[in-house]
């Protein structure tokens, strides 16, 4: 089974490992991510004002290309791309006026025919967590995982529809399928500070601190995420957090596909853990997940 796939800029470069692992795991799970030819950046922000259409032209073109190549689905790994594409698609589907403006401008015919899927959704709804469980070679036994959703994978709930807002479970179910132990922590749907990382650093640091503290207080060994921006904030802010809170001890933050790859017995050497500021390898070795 092949699924058209939109990697996005960050997964082509700085989050290459989120992408690599995702693609390799798919092969092990019996499906293939087929990269869209000639894709462009999704724009990384969905316009939150009514009179700004131009930023939607990029994602609309991506969606129209997907459709024109005979596809009705498009898979993403990055929460940001997922959110932007999904919300843009909703506009194409439901807002006649804005759709007309944008499609006229890019000279394409598109009416929201493509269903935008997140990789996790694909695992849950198309592959099935039961099947995934059967394919696991090296279960993540004894690994306590804080499943961090953040904002864009979930909100706005009515538009995204991946899971409920206050207490989603898709991520925990995923970790359970891999044999790991999800820990409940109250900050799992809170914001990491997002793009304030390039503006109000204090916001990003404080938000990350609250999330990480909450994960640790509830016994987590590691935090997982689907988003390169969350991964960056949560990982990179840790030295700064330590400056103001000496009691804070670090915790690794990895992509969900990296743990998936380990459970499917792909080599840790190929997973790019060297990019992480807080190295997850000592933990993974201690837990016997990585030799």
């Amino acid at each position: 089974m092949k699924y058209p796939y939109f990697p996005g800029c960050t997964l082509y470069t700085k989050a290459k490992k989120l992408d690599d692992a995702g693609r390799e795991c798919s092969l092990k799970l019996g499906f293939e991510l087929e990269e869209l030819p000639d894709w462009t950046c999704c724009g990384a922000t969905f316009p939150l004002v009514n009179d700004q259409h131009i930023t939607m032209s990029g994602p609309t073109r991506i969606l129209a290309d997907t459709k024109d190549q005979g596809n009705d689905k498009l898979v993403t790994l990055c929460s940001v791309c997922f959110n932007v594409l999904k919300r843009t698609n909703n506009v194409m589907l439901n807002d006649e006026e804005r759709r007309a403006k944008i499609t006229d401008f890019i000279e394409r015919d598109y009416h929201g025919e493509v269903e935008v899927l997140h990789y996790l959704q694909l695992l849950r709804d198309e592959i099935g967590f039961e099947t995934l469980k059967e394919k696991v070679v090296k279960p993540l036994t004894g690994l306590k995982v804080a499943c961090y959703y953040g904002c864009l994978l979930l909100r706005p709930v009515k538009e995204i529809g991946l899971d409920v807002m206050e207490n989603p479970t898709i991520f925990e179910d995923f970790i359970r399928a891999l044999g790991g132990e999800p820990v409940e922590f109250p900050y799992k749907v809170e914001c990491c500070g997002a793009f304030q990382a390039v503006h109000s650093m204090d916001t990003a640091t404080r938000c990350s601190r609250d999330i990480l503290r909450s994960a640790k207080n509830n016994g987590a060994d590691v935090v997982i995420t689907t988003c390169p921006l969350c991964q960056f904030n949560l990982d990179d802010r840790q030295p700064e957090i330590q400056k103001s809170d000496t009691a804070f001890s670090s915790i690794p933050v990895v992509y969900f596909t990296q743990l998936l790859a380990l459970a499917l017995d792909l080599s840790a050497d190929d997973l790019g853990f060297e990019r992480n500021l807080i190295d997850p390898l000592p933990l993974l070795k201690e837990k016997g997940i990585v030799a």
Partner: protein
Amino acid sequence: MKTVISRSQVKGDFVNKVAEISGENFFDCYQCGNCSAGCPSVDEMDLLPSQVVRYLQLGLEEEVKNCKSMWVCAACMMCHARCPKGVDISKIMESLRVLRLREVGAEAHIDVTDFSEEYLARAPQIAMISGYRKFLPL
């Protein structure tokens, strides 16, 4: 701190424009404060998200235009996710931002040179792109 308000102020051009491009009716808000209670950015804000809406209800244009809150909003949509009246403050904040950024001679709100090269080398593209979109004049 006496403020005189009037019909022309409550229905002022700026306020109307914010309502128009955000698509939100400020008068849906009954000031319950739930948005502020869950907002991750309040520590850096000068007006709570609910106060931004309150000021818009009163037509306090200058105060809203110059508030810091719009710039530290992370567009996390938590406010909207919990608002009992369905008000989407992430849209209101963005409207305030873009109206400022569209002004003639608008200032940039980020400067790449503020960040170390090392930092920029690690920051993902999505951070930079969304940062540019949120903080640079259009």
